[in-house]
């Protein structure tokens, strides 16, 4: 947690060091984000019934590469980008009909999404944006355990999507700080239980991110 705070402070330092910049970048850009995410309680289901998987919040990291459209561009004001994100949440508890039991292991998700964000430029350096993305996610449940026993194994590649909103703060003509929120979800991934039968689970993830984008 201390390290997280240090990183957030480091990311925010440019806000103090830089004056407000009004220029709006257009053209290619790259960026990196870090944030925290909360994976919502998930319903797992198989042919024996349903159970609940509760995960701990965790950090996540993203890298983006995209294109800023200039204000007045016929495509619209906003940006299009390719985003890679890794989320890994530790299984805290599994609830069955008998009650809750200690969980263990990580559910790791690597996603690659094509995002579209509309940006609301104004006379200040702050530019709110809203948008979403579509793509794929590779989910790895091979480490999940309950009461020390294997719960699920295998990986699943599924269609994924997200909705996002946030605000950009232009530090310079080329550098901007991004504070955002993302809701990430997917169709239900399918994993294999220890007894060989398969189960599916929900995946709904809320995250708050802080990142820097550098435009060329």
């Amino acid at each position, binding site marked *: 947690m201390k390290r997280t705070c240090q990183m957030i402070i480091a990311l925010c330092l440019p806000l103090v060091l830089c004056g407000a910049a009004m220029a709006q970048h257009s053209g290619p850009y790259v960026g990196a984000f870090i944030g925290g995410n909360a994976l*919502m*309680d*998930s*319903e*797992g*289901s*198989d042919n*024996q*019934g*349903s*159970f*609940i998987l509760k995960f701990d919040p965790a950090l996540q990291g993203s890298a983006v590469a995209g294109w800023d459209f200039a204000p007045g561009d016929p495509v619209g004001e906003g940006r299009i980008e390719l985003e890679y994100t890794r989320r890994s949440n530790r299984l805290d508890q*599994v*609830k*069955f*009909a*008998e*009650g809750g*039991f200690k969980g263990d292991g990580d559910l790791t998700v690597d996603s690659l999404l094509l995002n579209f964000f509309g940006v*609301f430029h104004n006379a200040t350096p702050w530019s*709110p944006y*809203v948008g979403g993305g579509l793509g794929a996610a590779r989910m790895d449940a091979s480490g999940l355990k*309950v*009461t020390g*026993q*294997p*719960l699920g194994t295998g990986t699943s590649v599924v269609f994924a999507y997200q*909705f996002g*909103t946030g605000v950009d703060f232009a530090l310079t003509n080329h550098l901007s700080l991004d504070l955002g*929120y993302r*809701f990430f979800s997917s169709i239900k991934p399918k994993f294999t*239980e*220890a*007894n060989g039968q398969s189960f599916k689970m*929900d995946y*709904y993830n*809320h995250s708050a991110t802080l990142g820097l984008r550098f435009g060329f």
Partner: protein
Amino acid sequence: MIKLSWAGFLLLVVAGCGYNGTPTRHNDFTPLTSIRIVAADPAIEASHTIAALTSTKLTVIGDYSGLFTRDITDQVTSWSSNASTASFPYASPNNNRVFGASAGAASLTASVGGVTSAIYPLTVSPATVTAIAITPANPSIPNGLTTQFTATGTFSDTTTQDLTFDAVWASDTAAVATVSDAPASKGFAQSHTIGTATISATFGGIPAGTTILTVTPAVLQSIAVSPANPSVLSLSTVNFTATGTYSDGTTPDITNQVAWLSSRPDLATIPASGTTSVTATTLAQGTAVISAALAGVTGTTNLKVTGGTLTGFTIAPATVTLANGTVTRLTATGTFSNGSTRDISGAVAWSTADSNLATVTKAGGNLVWLNALGVTTGTPITAKSGTLTATSSLIVSAPTLQTLTITPPTGFVDLTAGASTRFSLIAAFTDGSTQDVTASSTWSSRDTTKATVDNSSAFAKGRISGVPAAAGPVIIDASYGGLTPSPSVTVTVTTRTLQSLAITPGTLNVGNQVKFSASATYTGTTIKDVTEDTVWSIDKPNVAILADSTSQPGQVVAVGSGSATLTATFGGLSKSVTITVP
């Protein structure tokens, strides 16, 4: 910024929260480490003893790594006993029932997968049964319902034991009630008709335990109100019926037994009781719950009143002069809160100031006749709906009839066999006035094999119908006040082959009355309007209804949003169109 706010709201809606349901799956990920046998009967569990020739049910509790326990009796793969004194002779689902074959001791075990239970010591006592009691004692149940009996044995060692499974069950009057002796449902009684039956449980060669089961009349379990959730225009009526479902499975019509109630009498009223049906009258737009209650059971349906609330209406004609003894049609047109207008002639209350001078007759649907009965320089005709009223004035004179004229004027009047056309009879009086006296006249055909007339009602008069497959000219006569028109009218009936039927649609909005027309195309491209000769129907009264199939053929009133099929049938052909109410 507004867009951003909407986007944020959308995000919150889409995002939702995590799963908040109740898990149904058992935890079998955690290893089962031990199991133990427990007698289902607490008394037997306490003593580990059953009487000889009796049985008891055992359960198996699994322990999962010390974290939780669960009844896993249904997962037991084998039961065993080390002695002949106790055995497991029964098939599933009673394979967990141990039988004490003879007095002595036995060690019982159960296995689930590779896990075997600790020994469950069971003693089979030599005690013999001395009495059997059945519970519940002397119960009464409504016809059609069931009850579960339990037999409890008292033994020579003063202990008691549940003998429901071991006893032989019987009913002395199976027509009234039966009781099951099948292993899976021992002691389960089903009633069949009103009366009494003696239920007995026999065990151990002693007199059977008995009890009297009284089957009482079936009880009402639910009420269904029909039609279910109707949509009805304001200022109209709808008939409701109630059907009861009784415990014996019968579903009689109980319309005349229930108490009817409208939750919103300001929107729809309904009498508290009725016979074969009760008629609700709709007043204003909204939804009222119509309930039917009997013996503590209530059935409901939602009555949706559409078409707006009446805000005003007018009478046509506003002023009318009639010759004494004639009639004319009255029309009331309502204006509603949703902007619609429609004919409400049949829904308003009509009255005249002096019934010696004039009366108003409702002839069904929206057909209303004003009858001139006495000479007057002016008498008011009033229509009322709720607090709204409208008035017209009637002048009745007694001029001398001079001539009669049929319109359309005589000449070649084409009439298709199987279809009809209308004529009017216009009277001219000595004071120079004229009046349409069709409804007061008498019509006749000189050759009814070719064309017929209908004098059965004022509305039917003047309508000439071509006899199917007939052909040729025919003279039609009319008379009023002792005169006949000169010349009479001649129609030529022509037999034509119907090729197709078409409906000219209108645009519907809820509450509005719209006229649809039917036209028939015959061989030779002859097209005739057959709206009045067509049988009209609509399949979904919650969407649209026919305004008045008698006096307003083809006229449709939209009731509620949706799509319905309007069908016109004429000459053996049918044509349907989909009408959509926005």
